[in-house]
């Protein structure tokens, strides 16, 4: 059951921001509602005004202009099925297929997901490896922030009360990049997410650049520069030789706590395990191997 609120359906982002500025803490932007309405039902959030951002011009479109821009109100389903996403960031489409469940994907939005900053989410982790930039609009104008700076902690972002997350811009990897996203956990939301991308040279023989992010373990997802540095320049056939080392590096880069998802030491070890596994899968993809992807219990591989 929801407590009463006034619904606002502004026509433009400027109007929406003006409303947010006027209403202050009493208002919340509303898109799919899959997270917001849930917390409102629990009484954890009690906004008296909802500002619907689904109808704002440009908020529900996916555009390709060198980088790939996902409007904040684009649903996970739309991402999953977009030919543009499939062409430019195929792993994003593949991961979208595994966000939460079919009903959440049909309604929930990319912007809502990022703006809620639930630490147990898939998109933010993956987007870090795509050098995601979020665009925020407010009565003061527009600004851009790296996703890494936007997400400050668990359920905490750099968005000001009168700001709207308008879109997120992804920098697609070069064609031929071998990448994978793996998530693991027995709970409804993932215990661990690993996104790993190997940018290859023209002959697909060597890693020219790597992007690795680990999510769900720390309050916010993190890129792992130490792992990326270790992978840079490694020949594809030799990736297996560094699997153990990069697992250890990744484990050293996270600071998990004990919680329902597991003890800190277990989670740290799982980071090592799944970074290794992600590397092996990506290495297989780099080789163009046709061997089937291994299946692991309680793990989803995209």
């Amino acid at each position, binding site marked *: *059951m*929801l*407590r*009463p*609120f*006034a*619904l*606002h*359906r*502004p*026509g433009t982002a400027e*109007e929406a921001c003006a*409303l947010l500025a*006027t209403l202050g803490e009493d208002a919340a932007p509303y898109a799919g*509602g*899959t997270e917001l*309405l*849930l917390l409102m*039902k629990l009484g954890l959030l009690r906004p008296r*005004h*909802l500002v619907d951002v689904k109808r704002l011009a440009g908020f529900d479109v996916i555009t390709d202009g060198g980088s790939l821009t996902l409007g904040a109100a684009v649903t996970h*389903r739309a991402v999953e099925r977009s030919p543009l996403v499939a062409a430019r960031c195929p792993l994003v489409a593949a991961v979208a*297929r595994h966000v*939460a*469940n*079919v*009903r*959440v994907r*049909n*309604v929930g939005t990319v912007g809502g997901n990022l703006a809620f900053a639930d630490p147990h989410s898939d998109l933010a982790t993956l987007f870090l490896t795509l050098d995601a930039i979020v665009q925020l609009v407010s009565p003061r104008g527009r600004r851009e922030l790296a996703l890494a700076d936007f997400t400050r902690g668990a359920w905490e972002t750099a968005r000001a009360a009168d700001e709207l997350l308008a879109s997120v811009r992804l920098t697609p990897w070069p064609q031929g990049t071998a990448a994978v996203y793996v998530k*693991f956990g*027995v*709970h*409804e*939301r993932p215990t661990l997410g690993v996104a790993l991308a190997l940018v290859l040279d023209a002959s697909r023989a060597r890693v020219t650049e790597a992007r690795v992010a680990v999510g769900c373990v720390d309050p916010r997802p993190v890129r792992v520069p130490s792992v990326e540095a270790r992978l840079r320049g490694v020949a594809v056939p030799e990736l297996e030789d560094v699997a153990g080392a990069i697992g250890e590096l990744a484990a050293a880069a996270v600071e998990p706590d004990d919680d*329902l998802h*597991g*003890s800190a030491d*277990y989670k740290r*070890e*799982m980071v090592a*395990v799944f970074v290794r596994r992600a590397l092996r899968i990506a290495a297989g993809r780099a080789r163009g191997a046709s061997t089937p992807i291994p299946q*692991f*219990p*309680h*793990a989803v591989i995209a």
Partner: protein
Amino acid sequence: MTAGGVSRLTIRAVVNGRPRELDVPTHALLLDVLRDDLDLKGAKRSCDSQVCGACTVLVDGLAVSACTYLAVEADGRAIVTVEGLADGDALHPIQEAFIEAGAVQCGFCTAGMLLTARALLAENPTPTREQILHSLRGSLCRCTGYRKIVDAMEARHGARVEERPGSAGTRRTFGGEGAMSGPPATPTTPEERPGSAGARRTFGGEGAMSGPPATPTTPEERPGSAGARRTFGGVGAMSGPPLKWIGRSVRRVDALEKVTGRARYVTDLVVPGMLHARVLRSPHAHARLARVDATRARALPGVVAVLTGADLTWCDPYCGPAFRDRPILAIDVARFEGEPVAAVAALDEATAEAALDLIDVDYAPQPAAITLEEALAPGAPLVHTGEPLAGHFADLSSLKPEPGTNVCHRFRFARGDAAAALAGADLVVEDTYRFPAVQHYAMEPHAAVAAWDETGSLTVWASTQNPYSVRVELAKMFGAPLSRIRVVVPHLGGGFGSKTYAKLEPLTAALAHVARRPVRLAISAAEAFQTVRRCSARVAMRVGFRRDGALVAVECDAQYDVGAYADIGPRVVQKATYTATGPYRVPHVALGAAAVYTHTTPGGAFRGFGVPQLAWALESLFDVAADRLGRDPVDLRRDNLLGHGEEFAPGDTPIDGKYEESLGRAAEAIGWTQALAADRGRGVAAMLKASIGPSVSEAIVRLHADGSVTVLASAVEMGQGTRTVLSQIAAEVLAVPLERVTVVPPDTAITPYDQTTSSSRSTTMTGRAVQVAAEDVREQLLRVAADALGLPARDLALEDGAVVSAVQRLTYPEILALRFGMSGGELIGRGVVAPGRSAAPLGGSTPFWEMAVGAAEVSIDEETGAVKVERYVSVADVGRAVNPLVLEGQDEGGVVQGLGHTLLEEMVYTDGHLVNGTLLLYRVPRADDVPALACRFVENADGAGPFGAKGAGEGSLIPVSPAVANALARLTGVRLRDLPLTPERVWRALRARKDPETHAGEPS
């Protein structure tokens, strides 16, 4: 667009093909608008957090969670609910498929499953299994074990059903005359029919369970006694006369209403003028209530009544089946987090909810005992300090709390000299095993609607498994005669024990009394975590063997955490501990157990009733012993199994099934002696469980002037298929088509006494009462027909709605017309099954033993510790499967529920607080967790129930944990003693094995 926004909107939507215009508040959820404004009750509220899918509807073809979707979003869109799936009377193919595959049980998830399936199939008519499982990632079912749902979606159901024994083949149409009544498998002669005199001799009728009259029976006549066993069924009865309805996988009689969304549950009922209630709950595990002031809440417009513990002076506020230790609302002290402290009845739920914020409570938090260790420590905070009153069952009067401690009941059972036998044993294996507190998560959370009339009579529509126990509680608390308390039970959305004994009914009735209006209280799934749970346990067991493998002694010292109020916990402890030795011959036993109060959610009945906790220990130790003795675990079990007819304990029912057959078939089906891949392990486990004794079921069968039949019985349909089974029994005895039989839902004003729908007893006890009542009608028919035809009754038989002789035939309408001299009147048959007390150790003999064996094949992801159950086989000795498809579905659900506490489920307390008390955080099995699963039955018609049937449904769950752990131990060498076998727990154990120095002493 105004700066103020809008708080209401007029929306236009096409709902199930019909244009609708609705004026809705902006905060209205689509689910509430559909259910309350449009009376489309098919979508259900369960988890309320987008995890379970029970509220799924389609919006422009896409599945959404109507519980978390604003109704205003439906503007301009097409909505399809389950009510809109069928085209008039023509079911949608997916509805047909669900019925055919047996994918419908309690029905609470069914609408969501159907719509999820429809959305998938609309996009992809030929989905792969992976795609089906992916689409069901957000759809929970607690009854079916998912297998038949996936089958239905794969649309391979037709072939599968035809393969099944007892199946009458597939029928793709529904609702036509005879659709449920295909011809008998083989033509029969009148003499061979079960209704004939010859058949009656085989299947009983003269025995103790076949009253009337309900006079005291002699021990020789009791169903558990040897004499009774001779009377009922008996080995070989399976080869008796062919049966028309028994043993056939007929469609469930409630399938149509469930796939169309028409089945009504308590939460769907609307009583004119009813108020809506909400409950204020303690945020502390243990607190004194220094002040509870509802003044501000009472002043809120729309609030009609507010109740606090201090207000309950006009009734007896205490209830409880074992001890009357639980107040309707906390009085002076709150003993667990979530205990009801106050309740509000208001014109609508939102007002009631808002009023909760206006109740001022000053809590003085007290030290709490959350764990068994804390509760049993010297100087532990006491949960109860006064002497509780005895509960309402005479047979529980022996239960005694130990004053000054948190021990609410202690039970001991001994035979022989276990200490000496263990001292002399060649091998003693011993260890301490732990079983977690788990939540039933029946998908329908508890609900009740209560209404008092001007004469002081109370009617309660309740989601309860035992209306008659609820009636006793209410009568005591409100000082009314039983005849003035009416408890009505519509469909239940799952029970699993959570809905046994009074739960919400006393509070709802008290609110209705004060408000002087009907009151509805429907709690959330999260509140169900604060209502009842399985008793967690710590079990220390020592098991002694001779070198040759003979089991010589079992010593057990168990503590069960029964939470803050006893509920039925002491009985759980007593009954389970009595059978702690499982299905084995053990000369020397010393079994002890304590029920221990803690400051946590009350523990009560949950499928298995205390036995899973003990079987976890015993069956694990059996494999430890096999290992030490160098014996095969299957062989070691076989050597020690109780044989058919063998005594379990003096005075109790002898073993009424063939364990060696179950064990053999389970071993064969899992391929026990076959080669095994190096990365797989196999394990086996067995179980034994008593049902309730003494025990009473009564039934009335009415044959109407047109030859149709009404069955009055109070077994609750909660998904297990009891309405279907009772229909089959009545149809069989009276030789009428199944669709001519109507089973009336339980209503204590109408349907006769039945003790409880639990303990796997309904087919055996209620079913037997229906059989006896139907036989009573049959005798009356034969008498009238014999007079009319001038033939002895023994020359007559019942056939297709008529009494026939070799040459003559009188239809039932003709017979009734002869009997009454007019076209009216009816024949009424009465059935009473009342085995009474016996010399058995618990005071009553079990009417049957529930017997099953499970076998698992597992693999392990060693790096993560994740255990995967690849294959599972359950073999249950059921005497006779009245409806094999329904029973198979029930056992599949039991296995999967068992996999829940084996691998996933545990209520976790941190710093005194339950931290995973919602479905977002408490993980139950999903469709993609289900292994390749085979549930099979041993049928020797040797049960005490109708046609040799006996109880089933709990047995499949109990062996799961030890079978899986035994398989894991055989695969990895690691023996785990704590459930669930979470990846982290297994990972830790594997690590300790590899590196015992570093990780010694780590918890496993």
